[in-house]
């Protein structure tokens, strides 16, 4: 049994920073079968415990080993409706792969890559179009078309509900379309997942902001028996340091939305512009920061920098993306924090002033708290600054909806067991509840709420 996992072919780092095409190219059938051969098929598989939706990992891998790819995807899809997305973006090293027994001595089985392989195989072979089940006479409204909303809608449709998804933007998919870039998650994959949910009979309405275009009360009045809120955490944070409103300072949300949703990388063919300086600094250390900095390179920046106040060990980004960023030549300034953005006489960014940090005692998150090193200020010449500091739930909906309680930081208050909010018939899940988390956790929350909504509506009938 080989100890090393099967490598995944990828675009050459020198080439790929010139395009927005996918970086990781996926396993061939041979590679997948070989990698599947490493799995021990554990009787009590620890990997499954690490997966938030309990994908039956050894079973699907066994099918791949037997070249029964259709069987493999069927097993995956019985618990995970978005495998082509999860296989690409799950932080596997923190979840399924973290607990794989092979990881103790060598490298864990590449569960994510195998999941992606099976999902891509199915997309290429042609996805079986589900036939919409018979309508049970009830309607449910889903707000937001991110992973949480799509999952809840899909599950409810399978139970016979007529589901309408209301999406504020002009395109469905949530962060998977406006945030995560094409080179990591091709939009055709998201599109295919959306189409699958639609094939289940789900109606999707874009350009509707619930709370503005229509209120939750009105949804109930127009015959929806329950509402699921999968509105995400779209509100960007800024640092509150001087110079943040200079020309050339972006939130990561704006930077990524212009690039991905509006396709500014194809300006002027696409009409939305983006302004990329020669040197770009991205502040933060998560997936969002990695995506922003790698977009900067692809948008033509000569130098792309990460400025992060903790050390590499604390970086919340997926390991694979951190490695990719390094290969692509991103320059890392760890234990460094910006204190001020400096502008030129015309009000454009010319530099950021930073201070060095050192790690002190662990904080509430269990990570060691960074503290400033006195007198260590220095300036970095940059023309663009992107703030990737995390996001919180957008208050538009909660403010306009009586009866919804939110935490002081903006997250919706729910019953952990069911996803029920403080308002009867209204459920919530995903980033709107947790703050920015992961695709798979959002899906898990959508699933749980769908089941609870089903209970609730049945309970009311009897």
């Amino acid at each position: 049994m080989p100890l090393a996992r099967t490598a995944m072919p990828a675009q050459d780092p020198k080439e790929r920073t010139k395009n927005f095409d996918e970086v990781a190219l996926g396993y061939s059938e041979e590679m997948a079968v070989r990698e599947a051969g490493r799995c021990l098929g554990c009787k009590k598989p620890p990997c499954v415990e690490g997966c938030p939706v309990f994908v039956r990992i050894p079973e699907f891998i066994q099918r791949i080993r037997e070249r029964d790819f259709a069987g493999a995807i069927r097993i995956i899809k019985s618990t995970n409706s978005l495998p082509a997305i999860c296989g690409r973006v799950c932080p596997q090293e923190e979840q399924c792969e973290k607990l794989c027994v092979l990881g103790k001595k060598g490298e864990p089985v590449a569960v994510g890559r195998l999941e992606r392989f099976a999902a891509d195989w199915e997309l290429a072979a042609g996805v079986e179009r589900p036939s919409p089940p018979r309508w049970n006479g009830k309607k449910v409204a889903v707000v937001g078309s991110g992973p949480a909303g799509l999952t809840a809608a899909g599950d409810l449709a399978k139970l016979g509900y007529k589901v309408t998804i209301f999406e504020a933007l002009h395109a469905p998919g949530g962060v998977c379309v406006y945030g995560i870039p094409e080179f990591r998650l091709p939009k055709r994959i998201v599109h295919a997942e959306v189409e699958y949910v639609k094939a289940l009979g789900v109606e999707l309405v874009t350009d509707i902001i619930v709370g503005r275009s229509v209120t939750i009360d009105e949804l109930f009045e127009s015959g929806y028996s329950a509402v699921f809120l999968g509105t995400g955490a779209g509100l960007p944070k800024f640092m509150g340091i001087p110079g943040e409103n200079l020309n050339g300072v972006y939130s990561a949300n704006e930077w990524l939305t212009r690039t991905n949703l509006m396709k500014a990388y194809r300006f002027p063919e696409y009409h939305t512009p983006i302004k990329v300086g020669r040197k770009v600094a991205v502040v933060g250390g998560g997936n969002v920061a990695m995506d922003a900095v790698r977009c900067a390179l692809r948008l033509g920046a000569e130098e792309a920098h990460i400025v992060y106040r903790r050390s590499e060990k604390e970086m919340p980004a997926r390991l694979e993306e951190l490695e990719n960023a390094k290969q692509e030549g991103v320059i890392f300034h760890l234990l460094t924090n910006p204190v001020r953005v400096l502008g030129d006489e015309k009000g454009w960014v010319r530099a950021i002033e930073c201070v060095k940090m050192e790690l002190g005692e662990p904080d509430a998150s269990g990570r060691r708290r960074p503290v400033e090193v006195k007198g260590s200020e220095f300036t970095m010449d940059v023309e663009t600054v992107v703030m990737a500091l995390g996001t919180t739930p957008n208050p538009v909906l909660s403010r306009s909806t009586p009866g919804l309680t939110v935490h002081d930081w903006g997250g919706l208050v729910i019953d952990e067991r069911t996803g029920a909010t403080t308002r009867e018939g209204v459920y919530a899940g995903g980033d709107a509840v947790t703050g920015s988390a992961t695709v798979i956790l959002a899906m898990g929350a959508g699933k749980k709420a769908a089941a609870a909504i089903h209970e609730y509506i049945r309970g009311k009938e009897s």
Partner: protein
Amino acid sequence: MYKIVEKAVLTPVTKKFVVLAPMIAKKAEPGQFVIVRNGEKGERIPLTIADFDRAKGTITIVFQEVGRSTADLGLLREGDSILDVVGPLGLPAELPASGRVACVAGGVGVAPTYPKAKAMHERGVKVISIVGARSSDLLIMEKEMGAVSDELHICTDDGSRGFHGFVSEKLRELLQGGARFDEVIAIGPLPMMSATVEVTRPLGIRTWVSLNPIMVDGTGMCGACRVTVGGKTKFCCVDGPMFDGHQVDFKEAMRRSQMYLEQERLAAQVRHEGCAAGGDR
């Protein structure tokens, strides 16, 4: 898809569309705006709801062709459809229910001013409107404004009609002549709003302005639209677009509106060449 049920050419560079959008019409209040996107490759363009008709399910937008996106939009004809229209966005204007209010409007700013003047007029507020443009052929919505104003003053920068000079100067003249206003609403290009708030500042007259920063989503998600008001950063699309003009950092707003000047020029050039070559637009 949102059908254009009526199109009017108000000036060579200003177009008016009446668009079928029943859900938006049902909710719209004076002061709010929509974001439109014309075509798969289009930008998201914020435009004020200049009027709405709940019974007919229509909203009216009036826009000036200042760059590629608005020029492309202007090519649409009656019966065509706009791909995306989302709204109503922003907070409704806080309008007084009595007293005397001066509505100062410059250029295409007349369009966003109109629904506010109309709403106040309907409530019995005395509306004194000062409407201006660079030249007489660029004046818009004069008749509509006249119908909802107790007094209507026309101004042109070049003196081709009415008062010769800026709307802010006309306001100063009225104030110096003894006119009294409980509030002022000033909407138009940034320099015009900035000049107007300087006229009212020494007199302490509350002055509302409607800011129009560059936007992307219009729902509070991106922060492109940040403006500084009273020393605090606000997102114009969710905290505005109406703000207390005496608190607004106009210098910053003007600077930020120039962020894409270079790209806008390129886009205009590409568009121009595309037209000349008879290419698709």
